[in-house]
């Protein structure tokens, strides 16, 4: 007991103890870092496995010396509370730190130090590291698919226009604010569709027609996600309300719809939309493959949205309905002004979840021959001139998807904070 107490600080000597403790932890970290980066073993004088355990033991003693219930020093208390509550957690902390340090040099050298980015053919990649030349050469394909290079400005312009139109709500005059929902639910999608149709598809105004089969890459990811997101939300809202309706016909249609679409895998829905669906259409009726895919994903995700929104509707106390009714509001007024504003606020995290899943589901449209970002990767990695660079491609795609999804989830946090009212 005496020896353990010897390492236990009290409030009087915590200052010295924490200095010695952090010094010991520092030594253990230096040992690991020099081991990982400089490939030198500072503790080679120690025997075998003892040498590799040395930093762990040293770090543990150091952390043990710093551990105290309450010191008054904010940084130290925070450290103790979060990563140093007991010996087991201290060991975990050290192991995680060591693993990160150990993993850094190889990943750094693969991704940056030994990587190649110059040149424009496979021959430029001679190092043992990543071949970013591959990404560089294929960059336009990954972004725009097979869309003709000289027309890429059309896609860029269309996107800028659509984004700009999306911000209209911020600059709308106060007296027009009540039409905001109408704008975003009906007018905006229509304008966005027209912009994308006339600019990216072309065929009129002297712009050359580019068929949707040539579209691809990240821009296609954006187009598919964008339309599915803005259409599936209102549709989901309608089915969520429908499922709670008192009218049996509406209620059971909604239940059937939701249960049907939740019951089938997205990949079969996509197959059906592109293979089976045209068979049921009249001979002379033509619907573009991309449009069919967007409709399919929208209908599919609307079912999920509906259930998320229904969860929000159900979490509202019955008193809110009673109060709205007692003030003489009918079904629609009650839902538009009282129920939905509260319910939708509650389901922001759930909706964000669904939307993120939707964005990450878009690569599935590859099965019907549409190559968005991940699809283009799959095509590029089988190109005979560029075999063997799948890894770089997937890392690139993961980073892009991560940025998109992280931005979306950040945005949803902002929305939550913005619409938070004290209950």
């Amino acid at each position, binding site marked *: 007991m005496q020896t353990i107490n010897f390492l236990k600080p009290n409030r009087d000597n915590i200052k010295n103890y924490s200095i010695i403790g952090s010094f010991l932890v520092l030594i253990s970290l230096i040992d690991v870092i020099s081991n990982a980066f400089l490939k030198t073993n500072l503790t080679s004088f120690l025997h075998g496995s003892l040498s590799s355990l040395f930093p762990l033991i040293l770090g543990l003693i150091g952390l043990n010396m710093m551990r105290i219930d309450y010191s008054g020093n904010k940084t130290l208390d925070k450290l103790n509370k979060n990563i140093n509550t007991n010996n087991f957690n201290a060991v975990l902390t050290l192991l995680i730190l060591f693993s990160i340090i150990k993993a850094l040099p190889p990943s750094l050298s693969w991704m940056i130090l030994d990587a190649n980015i110059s040149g424009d053919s496979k021959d430029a990649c001679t190092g043992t590291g990543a071949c970013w030349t591959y990404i560089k050469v294929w960059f336009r394909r990954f972004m725009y698919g097979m869309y003709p290079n000289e027309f890429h400005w059309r896609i860029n312009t269309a996107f800028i226009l659509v984004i700009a139109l999306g911000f209209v709500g911020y600059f709308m005059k106060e007296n027009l604010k009540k039409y905001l929902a109408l704008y975003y639910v009906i007018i905006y999608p229509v304008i966005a569709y027209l912009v994308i149709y006339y600019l990216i598809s072309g065929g009129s105004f002297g712009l050359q027609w580019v068929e949707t089969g040539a579209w691809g890459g990240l821009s296609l990811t954006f187009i598919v996600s964008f339309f599915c997101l803005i259409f599936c939300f209102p549709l989901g809202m309608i089915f969520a309300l429908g499922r709670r309706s008192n009218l049996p016909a509406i209620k059971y249609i909604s239940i059937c719809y939701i249960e049907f679409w939740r019951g089938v895998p997205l990949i079969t829905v996509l197959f059906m939309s592109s293979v089976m669906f045209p068979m049921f259409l009249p001979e002379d009726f033509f619907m573009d493959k991309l449009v069919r895919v967007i409709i399919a994903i929208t209908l599919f995700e609307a079912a999920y949205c509906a259930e998320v929104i229904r969860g929000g509707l159900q979490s509202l106390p019955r008193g809110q309905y009673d109060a709205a*009714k007692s*003030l*003489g509001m009918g079904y629609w007024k009650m839902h538009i002004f009282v129920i939905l504003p509260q319910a939708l606020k509650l389901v922001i995290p759930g909706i964000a979840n669904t939307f993120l899943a939707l964005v990450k589901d878009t690569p599935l449209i590859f099965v019907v021959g549409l190559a968005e970002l991940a699809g283009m990767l799959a095509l590029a990695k089988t190109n005979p001139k560029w075999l063997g660079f799948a890894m770089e491609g997937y890392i690139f795609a993961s980073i892009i998807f991560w940025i998109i999804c992280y931005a979306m989830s950040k945005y949803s946090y902002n929305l939550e904070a913005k619409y938070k009212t004290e209950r």
Partner: protein
Amino acid sequence: MSDPIIKIQNMNKWFGDFQVLKNINLEVEANKKIVVCGPSGSGKSTLIRCINRLEEHQEGDIIVDGNELSEKTKDIEKIRAEVGMVFQQFNLFPHLSILDNCTLAPIWVKKMPKKEAQELALDQLKKVQIDDQANKFPGQLSGGQQQRCAIARALCMQPKIMLFDEPTSALDPEMIKEVLDAMVSLAKGGMTMIVVTHEMGFAKEVADEVIFMDEGMIIEKADTKEFFANPKSDRTKLFLSQIL
């Protein structure tokens, strides 16, 4: 004697197999104040919720201001707009400010111009002495303030009848008084009121009639003085002896 504004005849109501209201007969004349009391589970709340059809009755007639309430009633919203209601749990809309809580229904149900609705709302809020809180949100107010706001919100619809469903039961003893004061001054203004409450002091002060209910039936209905001075049924006597 004028025509009653609320007329309930032989009304029965079931929740599933359980009969909550048994053969209710009640007439309320305009400008009268009725207090309904009785043990919990006796159907008091259900009775007044039937009057603006938040609950549907299965048998008998309910006639409110000349309109019969039934499945065939088309403009139930119109009738509800004439009948204000205050709830035990306040039921303010938490996403709207106090002022917006009060102006929402006048603007969208009565199609009142926004400015007019705001003036009316501030006027009503002033009467219950919370006009200085108009721009706060319900969550920032005390229970008593919230309940007074709920009263103001109902009054903004300029109803002919006010229903109170245990308006003080969810409040601290200190806050009960401020809500009761608001109700008393409303009563003195001549509003037709039906109040479900256990506040017998309030009943003695403002009620014209007191109704005692138990097990879904109206056991006793009498003038206030009569009710407290010599209750007729034994059940009423027992009840009064326990709460007074």
